[in-house]
Every structure is written in structure tokens, then in C-alpha cells.
């Protein structure tokens, strides 16, 4: 059984991080260059970590499967980034951001981690402005803010509807500078396919060059994974097509525990599915809920009518009705479930009946069409491109879609997994968002981890490693890992079955959306646990992967990723089945209040579930890390 020591420092909540920084070990400047650190991924977390560690003097190697580190999917985040600056004089503080984030996560995150996140949020804004991130400004030249779900203050910083892009380009510019200075060695088109463990510690990775197919070994003193979330397990999601769980899944199979997989975020405002060919779903930023009003017709028979012909009295602004104090800005999990409920009642709109209206008519009356265009113009354009409809004229149709995963590899307060030397940052870890992430908090966490946590905490680990003790890639552990990768590649290429990879990915996605999506039941999850292994068996027997392994082969890349999803999806269902409560993004129909809200069971499930791999075909072990709330009371979330 794995040892899960969260290593939360003692002392008052607000002093923990400061005291911890003062007490952990340091590596002296002359020794830093003797340590090599591998960073996998160059999104917000990876790029900020790689450049910051490079600047500190460590020798950094950064690996991405993309053609450039600027492509990571952090780039698609639209709305903004939270920070407790209190520039609006509206009562914000580090404590309030901490509390909102903890409550938003339905009391399933660690207090100490969340408080640290809120503390460093203010440094992130400073850092990004210094890099030249063009945040929105007031006429006086000072920074502007807007509101996001789950908060009653305006603390979200933004750059039009492209905040993720601008923050990522800021991190990318820092990374580019450190690459140019020779502080970071960049490997593009390079996919990590295995983790190498030597004497119980993470000491390297196996990489496939996606252009030449060449498999290479890389040794390091520590390995940092910042490879994002696993939402593409659902096939249809707001993720980029290439986003995958291969790095974290293969680390799991080498002994790193993976936690809380059932906490998946279904975002309420996405463009509805239009056909079976669809490859991805597109998000409409949560910021739209600042001014848009969500409604469906009161009567079923109005669902197919022209929305503009439905009189005000016949519309149900259900979020405003159900949650008067937060209204359209209630948290994502709550807004998504409410949309599902009204669609289940037969009041859903659009050709499929799986949609609700997001209406800007009132905002246009108040601000004028140009006022709305200035705030959301690019989002309205995206909507028009996809649907050929103008949201200035008719309400947008939206529906929930998979958007983010709160679960991920288990890490301690230092962001180190239970495998010493393996650090996990950003969406790839499980640490800060509990069972539900608030809007504008993913960017905050990615950059917090990369800029302001790992530069301190990695030193504590490296100081215990003798300089120059990095193992040689000739060690048998490297050979075994490489052989493992080669065997899997050959197995995929040799099956020459009946169906392309997409066939299996779509089927897996349908199973998960039906049984492990917005609402879950014991019966459904048990069914999924039967269907997924069958599908996996079929995949390995019948998948058809054309081409060869020694060239650029996108089918092969996708096949490896889907093979991992077929395993991860099963564990996600197992995690959902064993968590006999509802919390945040995990809604078990058996556990709800009469009004349909989540019913948590803090006594039995006030813990993190961290799964430990036991070998192929064996049921993984469910380890528990209790969540000790010292400073806040786990209470029932109320947004009414």
C-alpha cells in the first residue's frame, strides 16, 4: 500500500506557505547546474515551470508532443484568471478567494493547498504584467476586472476572450528566452511514453519522436509532469484533439497513485452537438453569464418554437429562479445539472432537444449591440461560424460538455507524487480544485504551480540527491521501459483489424457520457465496468492502425492514447462507483436532497481516493488520504 503523506506544514493556515518556504532545503547556485530536470508539457504549468527552473540555474529539458510549445491547450482558455488583488474595493481578500475556491470545490480539496493558491494569485498578475500580457484596462490605465461563477466579488483579470492565449504566450515568451539563452533544451514533436523508475525514484522518461518514430531514453534528477487533464476520455470534450492522458497514465502504471478520477467538470455553456461526425465541442466562455440570461420555455410544447416569439411570461429563467442570489453565475456543476434537468423534463430546445437558451436581448437593450460586441464580440463570431446563427438576433443555444478534470495524479504539498522525484503540476495533478473547479481558477493554478511553487519545492527534493548521481540511460530500468514502449507500438501496428481508432474512442465516449457523465448511478456504473473491458478487448483484437512506426503516423499516436483512455475510463467509473456520495462534479442520483442538490457524506467520504496500480488485470487498490479541515467547516454548499 502506498504511503500518502500530504506533508502539510503545521501552524496557522495563513503562515503555512511562508514558514514552509523558510524551512525547506535549498540547492546552492553553483550546484544547481549539476541537476537535470525533465519537464513534460509546455502549457501554463509546464512552460512557467521550465522557464523558472531554467532561470534558477537547473539544466532543464522540456518535451512536448506539439510542433511548438506555444500550442498547448491552455491557449484556448477564454474567460480569465482569478487573483485576490481587491482592485475593485469590493471586499476581496486572500481569505475570500481561498474560501470561495474551497467551497466551490465542495469541500473536497486540501485547505493548505487552496490557501497557498490564493496567496500566490496576486504574484501571478504581477509576473504576467511584467512579461507584457495585455490584460484589459480601465481608461486610467489600471487593470480591469470582471465577475465569474461562484464568487460575489469581481476578481477575474482578462484579455478579451483570449486570456489563456495571452497568459500562455507570456509563459511561452519566458520559455523562449530561456531556450535562446541555452538554459532550457526544447524537444518538440516528442511524446513521453513511459516513466523510468530507478531505485524507487523517478529518474527518466522514454520518448517517441513523432516525426521520425525514433524512441529515445532521457535521464534526469527529477521529472515534472505538466501534461494536462484526461477529459478526452469522453471523446467529445472542449479539449484539443491531441490532449491525452498517456503521460499520467503510464506514470500511474509505474506506481504513482491517481486520485479522484470521478471529479470531472461538465461546463454548462458549450455549443450543442450537431452530428455523429463531430470531433470536438466548443466552449462559450462562462464570462457570457455575466450578461446573458439562461432560460427554457415553461411549456414543453414551446420547445420547438422560434424563441423570439415566446413571450416573457412563458419563459423559465431557471437559474435565476432556483438560485436567486447567484443567479446565472452559480458554479459550473450546478448550472450544468440544472440544464440537464430541464432538458430531461422535455423543455430542451434546438433540433436535438439537448440545449437551453443563453439570451442577450436584455444586455443589448442595456448596453447596445456595440456594447455587447465590445465585451464578447469574438465569442459571438465563433458561435456564428459554427452554427451560422447570429446571437445578436436569436438567443444562443448551449448545452453542457466535458471541459476539465479535477482528478489527476496524487501529489503532496510539495507537488511531488508518492514516487519520489516525480512532480505533477497543473491540471495533471488532483490538488486544488476538490470536486469542482471554479471558473478562472485553472489558469491561476497552472501558473501558481509553475512560477511560484515548484521552483521552491523541487529544491527540497534535489538537495537530498547527490549531485552527479543521475543514473545512466544504459541501466536495465531504461532498457525495460524502452522495450515496453516498443512492444506496445508493435502490438498496435500488428493487429490489422476491422475498425479505425476513432470507432473505439467514440464508443468509449458514449459509454462514459451515459453512465459516468452529469449523473451517475450504481447500476449504470456497474454496467460501464462491464462494457469498458469488453470494448478494450475488442480494441486490441480488432483495431486497424495503418502505416509504420518509423515515420510520422498520427493513427499510431491516437491509438496509443485511446488504449490508455480505455483503461483510465474504467478506473474513473470504479472511482465513481466507490464514492457513495454526491459532491461537485460527481453526482450520484442515489445521494441527493429532495430539491436535487448534491448530498455529501463527509463522515464516510471526506477523503481523497488515490488509486494504486496492482498489475494488469488486477483491481487497483483504493488508498485514502483523509481531508482534515482545521480552519473551515465542511458545510452544505448554498448558492440560493
Amino acid at each position, binding site marked *: 500500500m502506498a504511503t500518502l503523506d500530504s506533508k502539510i506544514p503545521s501552524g496557522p493556515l495563513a503562515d503555512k506557505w511562508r514558514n514552509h518556504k523558510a524551512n525547506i532545503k535549498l540547492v546552492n547556485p553553483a550546484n544547481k547546474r549539476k541537476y537535470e530536470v525533465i519537464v513534460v508539457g509546455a502549457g501554463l504549468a509546464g512552460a*512557467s515551470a521550465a522557464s*523558472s527552473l531554467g532561470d534558477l540555474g537547473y539544466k532543464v529539458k522540456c518535451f512536448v508532443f*506539439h*510542433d*511548438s510549445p*506555444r*500550442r498547448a*491547450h491552455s*491557449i*484556448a482558455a477564454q474567460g480569465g484568471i482569478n487573483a485576490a*488583488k481587491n*482592485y475593485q474595493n469590493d471586499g476581496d481578500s486572500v481569505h475570500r478567494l481561498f474560501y470561495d475556491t474551497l467551497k466551490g470545490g465542495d469541500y473536497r480539496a486540501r485547505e493548505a493547498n487552496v490557501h497557498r493558491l490564493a496567496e500566490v494569485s496576486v504574484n501571478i*498578475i*504581477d*509576473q504576467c*504584467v*511584467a*512579461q*507584457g500580457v*495585455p*490584460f484589459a*484596462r*480601465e481608461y*486610467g490605465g*489600471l487593470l480591469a476586472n470582471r465577475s465569474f461563477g461562484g464568487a460575489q466579488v469581481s476578481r477575474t483579470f482578462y*484579455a478579451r476572450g*483570449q486570456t489563456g*492565449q495571452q497568459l500562455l504566450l507570456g509563459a511561452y*515568451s*519566458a520559455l*523562449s*528566452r530561456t*531556450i535562446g539563452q541555452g538554459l532550457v533544451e*526544447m524537444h*518538440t514533436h516528442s511524446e513521453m511514453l513511459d516513466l523510468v523508475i530507478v531505485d524507487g525514484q523517478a529518474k527518466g522518461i522514454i520518448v517517441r519522436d513523432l*516525426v521520425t518514430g525514433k524512441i529515445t531514453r532521457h535521464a534526469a534528477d527529477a521529472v515534472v509532469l505538466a501534461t494536462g487533464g484526461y477529459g478526452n476520455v469522453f471523446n467529445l470534450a472542449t479539449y*484539443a*484533439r491531441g490532449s491525452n492522458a498517456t503521460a499520467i497514465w503510464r506514470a500511474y502504471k509505474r506506481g504513482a497513485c491517481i486520485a479522484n478520477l470521478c471529479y470531472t467538470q461538465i461546463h454548462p455553456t458549450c455549443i450543442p452537438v*450537431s*452530428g455523429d*461526425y*463531430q470531433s*470536438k465541442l*466548443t*466552449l462559450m466562455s462562462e464570462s457570457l453569464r455575466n450578461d446573458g440570461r439562461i432560460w427554457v420555455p415553461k411549456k414543453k410544447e414551446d420547445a420547438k418554437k422560434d424563441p423570439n416569439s415566446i413571450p416573457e411570461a412563458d419563459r423559465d429563467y431557471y437559474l435565476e429562479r432556483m438560485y436567486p442570489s447567484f443567479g446565472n453565475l452559480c458554479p459550473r456543476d450546478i448550472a450544468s445539472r440544472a440544464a440537464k434537468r430541464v432538458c430531461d423534463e422535455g423543455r430542451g430546445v434546438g433540433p436535438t432537444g439537448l440545449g437551453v437558451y443563453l439570451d442577450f436581448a436584455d444586455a443589448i437593450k442595456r448596453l447596445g449591440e456595440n456594447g455587447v460586441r465590445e465585451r464578447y464580440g469574438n465569442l459571438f*463570431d*465563433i458561435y*456564428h*461560424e*459554427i452554427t*451560422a446563427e447570429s446571437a445578436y438576433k436569436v438567443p444562443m443555444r448551449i448545452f453542457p460538455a466535458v471541459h476539465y478534470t479535477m482528478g489527476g495524479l496524487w501529489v503532496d504539498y510539495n507537488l511531488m507524487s508518492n514516487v519520489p522525484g516525480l512532480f505533477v503540476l497543473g491540471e495533471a495533478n488532483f490538488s486544488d480544485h476538490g470536486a469542482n473547479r471554479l471558473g478562472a481558477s485553472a489558469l491561476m493554478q497552472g501558473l501558481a504551480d509553475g*512560477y511560484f511553487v515548484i*521552483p521552491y519545492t523541487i529544491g527540497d527534493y534535489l538537495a537530498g540527491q547527490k549531485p552527479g548521481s543521475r543514473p545512466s540511460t544504459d541501466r536495465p530500468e531504461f532498457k525495460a521501459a524502452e522495450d515496453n514502449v516498443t512492444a506496445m507500438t508493435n502490438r498496435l501496428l500488428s493487429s490489422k483489424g476491422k*475498425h*479505425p481508432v476513432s470507432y473505439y474512442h467514440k464508443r468509449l465516449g458514449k459509454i462514459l457520457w451515459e453512465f459516468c457523465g452529469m449523473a451517475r448511478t450504481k447500476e449504470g456504473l456497474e454496467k460501464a465496468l462491464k462494457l469498458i473491458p469488453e470494448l478494450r478487448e475488442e480494441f486490441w483484437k480488432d483495431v*486497424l492502425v*495503418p502505416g509504420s512506426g518509423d*515515420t*510520422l503516423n498520427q*493513427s499510431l499516436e491516437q491509438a496509443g492514447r485511446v488504449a490508455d483512455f480505455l483503461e483510465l475510463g474504467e478506473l474513473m467509473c470504479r472511482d465513481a462507483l466507490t464514492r457513495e456520495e454526491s459532491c461537485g462534479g460527481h453526482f450520484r442520483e442515489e445521494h441527493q436532497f429532495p430539491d436535487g442538490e448534491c448530498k455529501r457524506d463527509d463522515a464516510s467520504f471526506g477523503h481523497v481516493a488515490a488509486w494504486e496500480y496492482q498489475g494488469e488485470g488486477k483491481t487497483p487498490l483504493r488508498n485514502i488520504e483523509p481531508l482534515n479541515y482545521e480552519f473551515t467547516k465542511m458545510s452544505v454548499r448554498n448558492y440560493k
Partner: protein
Amino acid sequence: MVAENTSSRSLSITLRVWRQAGPTQPGKFVDYQSKDLSPNMSFLEMLDVVNDELTLKGEEPIAFAHDCREGICGTCSCTINGKPHGPGKGVATCQVYMRAFRDGDVVTVEPFRAAAFPVIKDLITDRSAFDKIQQAGGFITARTGSAPEANGLPVPKPDADLAMDAAACIGCGACVAACKNASAMLFVAAKVSHLGLLPQGQAERDRRVLSMVSTMDALGFGNCTNQYECSAACPKLITHDFIARMNRDYLGASLRAAFKPESAASGGGAG
């Protein structure tokens, strides 16, 4: 925005695709029939369907670059019917929908063509030259932790807005592919302008423009002859006005560099 085919009926097209097995192999156009497509399908989803059909027939699928499929990552890069990113205005390849085409159309698909973007396979090119230009100076040096309070440095809203217009560049390379000289001036100008418009970017403003422009030249991109095809093809509609701004910066920086001797101690540290 894409011109619309208002009909909701399905359509069939002939796809004429550039196939090239590798950087040193010769390429050629190959025709494929793509049938019964929904007008609401995206262009890349159409390629997905064609690729699954090719796979089932035992042929190798068409390699094409794509990732976010929402027009922001800059990965997708097809020249469709001679236009980088195809028939729409202000969109990337992934934002082209089949409603932009008519039943029976022959649709030609090629990679972005430029000497500085060699073909890797089929429709995928190597655009790492863009990263090299960024590494040469596309940044403000601000080590983590050294930043002053964010509101300590007000930025006039018009400057911040203009900087954001330039910063919207997604690094796709359509500007280069659209230019008869394969010039990267719009790409470089966007970054030079974004950082040069902000007070934070002033310290390195001269260095930045000189270094990025010389790297751009060294990597084999052509020069600007004011045709403005770049702006027309840009999925973010970044204006060529930024090129004029960069030229001004470049001229000023060159003159200052010629007349201002650098401190002999600038490279080393005091003891």
C-alpha cells in the same frame, strides 16, 4: 466569416490533396471522393471521415496538423483552393465549415508553402523557424519573482488595446504562406508591436527588433513588398499597419545602435 451555402442538404466534393511521404520525397496531388457531407461539418471533420475511409481501404490516411479545433492554437494550416486557411475571412482552417462549399466542387488542399516551412509529410510543415525568431527576442526579460506590483505601471487603454490586437497572433504562418515573397514580416511585426507598445517593453525595444529581424532574415524568409496578402489571410485579421510600425522601430534602433556605443562592461558582472 465564411460565405454560406444556405441549403441544409448534404453535399459531395472531390478532394484534391497534396500527398508527400516525407521531406525529401516528391509530392503529388491525389483525388478522393468525399460524399454525403453535412454542411455543418467542419473541414477538418470532413478530413477525419476521409481518413477513416482510407484506413478501412488499407491506404495511408492524409497527415494534417490540427489540435484545438477552435481557431486559437495555430496548429492547423491548410491552403484550401489556393488560400491559406481557405475561403473564410478571419478564420483558421479548423473554423471552415462545409457549408462554404457547393455540391460537386473540386476542393484543392495543400500545405502552407514557403522555403522556410519545409514539408514534413502531406499537409504538415515544419514551422519551427517561428519559434527561433521568438527565441531571438520575442520577450520581455522578467525573471520569475522579480515583478513589481501590477498596477504600479498604468498602461493607457488605447495602447493596451492596440497591443492586444497585435498579441492576438496565433503563430500559424498563414501570412508567410500568403506572401509571394514568403515574408514573415507580419508575424514579427505583431510581436515587436505588442511588446513595443507597452511601457514594460521599452528597455529591450531596440534589441528586440534588431535581433528578431536579423533572425528572420537568416532563416530564409523574404522581404515585404507591400501587397498585404498577409493581413488578408490572417485568421486574426492582424493589420499590416504593424509592419510599418516595426520598420520605424527597426530604423530607429539601427540608427541608435550605430551612434550609441555599448558599455564595455555590459556583458560581464562586477566582482
